């Protein structure tokens, strides 16, 4: 009986650790209509597809699949909360947001979070500068990275702001070849026009 139970537990645990790559449940976000994305209001120029949650308070949108272009919106992450879901708590734990972080320190928080979420060893912040996000003072982070076992250079641009002690983030990323530049103007416009 005990052996049988251990076998069942083994099967359940391994299956639970096996993350499926098929995540259905895409929702159409129509062009030029304001979409409520948790605590944010976003108005896209083109149709987008809204997928699952990369973190408890986040949503991802894509045009052609998240490997080719994606924009993530994270709303009102409280102190002690994390940007992304835990991937490997033991070896690479997800950083916790501290509402006392100064604006420049958000770049480091973002880098550690994005690295942990994507299991990255190659990630470089290209630029970090003050910016405006939805009428609030924020931080712009431009970055470059490659995914494990992939030669494709990818670029990203994130905007982070702390409002009433809570963290708001918009993050666009895509392969450097063609896709990043093709989607950047609309991504920037959405990030600038976002309303809390």
């Amino acid at each position, binding site marked *: 009986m005990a052996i049988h139970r251990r076998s069942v537990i083994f099967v*359940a645990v391994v299956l639970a650790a096996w993350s499926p790559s098929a995540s259905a449940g895409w929702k159409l976000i129509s062009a030029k209509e304001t979409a409520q994305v948790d605590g944010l209001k976003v108005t896209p120029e083109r149709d*987008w597809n809204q997928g699952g949650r990369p973190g408890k308070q986040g949503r991802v949108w894509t*045009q052609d*699949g998240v490997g080719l272009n994606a924009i993530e919106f994270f709303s009102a992450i409280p102190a002690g909360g994390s940007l992304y879901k835990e991937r490997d708590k033991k070896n690479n734990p997800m950083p916790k947001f501290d509402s006392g972080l100064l604006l420049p320190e958000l770049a480091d928080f973002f880098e550690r979070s994005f690295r942990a979420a994507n299991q990255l060893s190659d990630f470089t912040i290209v630029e970090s500068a003050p910016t405006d996000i939805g009428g609030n003072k924020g931080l712009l982070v431009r970055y470059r990275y490659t995914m494990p076992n992939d030669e494709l250079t990818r670029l990203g641009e994130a905007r982070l702001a702390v409002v009433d002690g809570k963290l708001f983030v918009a993050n666009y990323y895509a392969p450097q070849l063609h896709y990043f530049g093709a989607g950047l103007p609309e991504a920037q416009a959405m990030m600038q026009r976002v309303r809390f």
Partner: protein
Amino acid sequence: MMNKWLAAAILAVSFLVMAPMAHGQEKGAVREGFSAETLSGKKILLFRPSVWVGEQSTGGLAEPNADWTAQAREFLNAELARRQIEFSNELIIEPDLVGEDAKLFSEHRALFNSVASSVVNYQFFAGNRLPTRKNKAFDWTLGEGTKAIAERTGAQYGLFVRTEDQYGSFGRKMFQVLAIGLVGAGVSSGKHVGYAGLVDLHTGNLVWLNADEQMGGDVRTEEGMQKRVGQLLEDFPGFKPVATAAK
């Protein structure tokens, strides 16, 4: 007590058992307006194939095997060379380059893999199709960066080939048996992905794609690789008519 554990296992299985189905589709597509006649008289550049061979651990993680990969690459190159005679177009091989020129080619190979993966996961697989891709034409691109490759090589089209094979380890196979025996779950063992795609290097547009995430042929053997290449190039529009008829 036992029922609780069993229920937990069944719940986990019922949530996850659909995953392998996402990768069980063989599909090909041709861009609107493209046909074998469009290819007539045009040079095709054969990009260096992307080959990865390894083992799938008990938990489903991929572990590379350098010997298998090197051997599969050798078999693949030999088989593609052997089949060149069947192509109706002049086929040129990716030149050996260094520095930025080499990066131009390697990054486009990697981009093709990402684009092909997107096509399979977000358009071909109906259960995960993006709403913006529903009932839409086959319209995917690598972007106009491919023009630089056309200028360097004189080729108008680029043929990309990718294979990725994970052979189930002993532990994975045992797990598969356990999962079926204990909870009736169909757990996959091994992964055999193959993409072949033709790109118009002047526009970057993908004009033909054959993608299968459950390919046949053991790429660690010569015969297996022959079968794999046969599947990869099935319906390739650039074969001589006589070769097509003989298949």
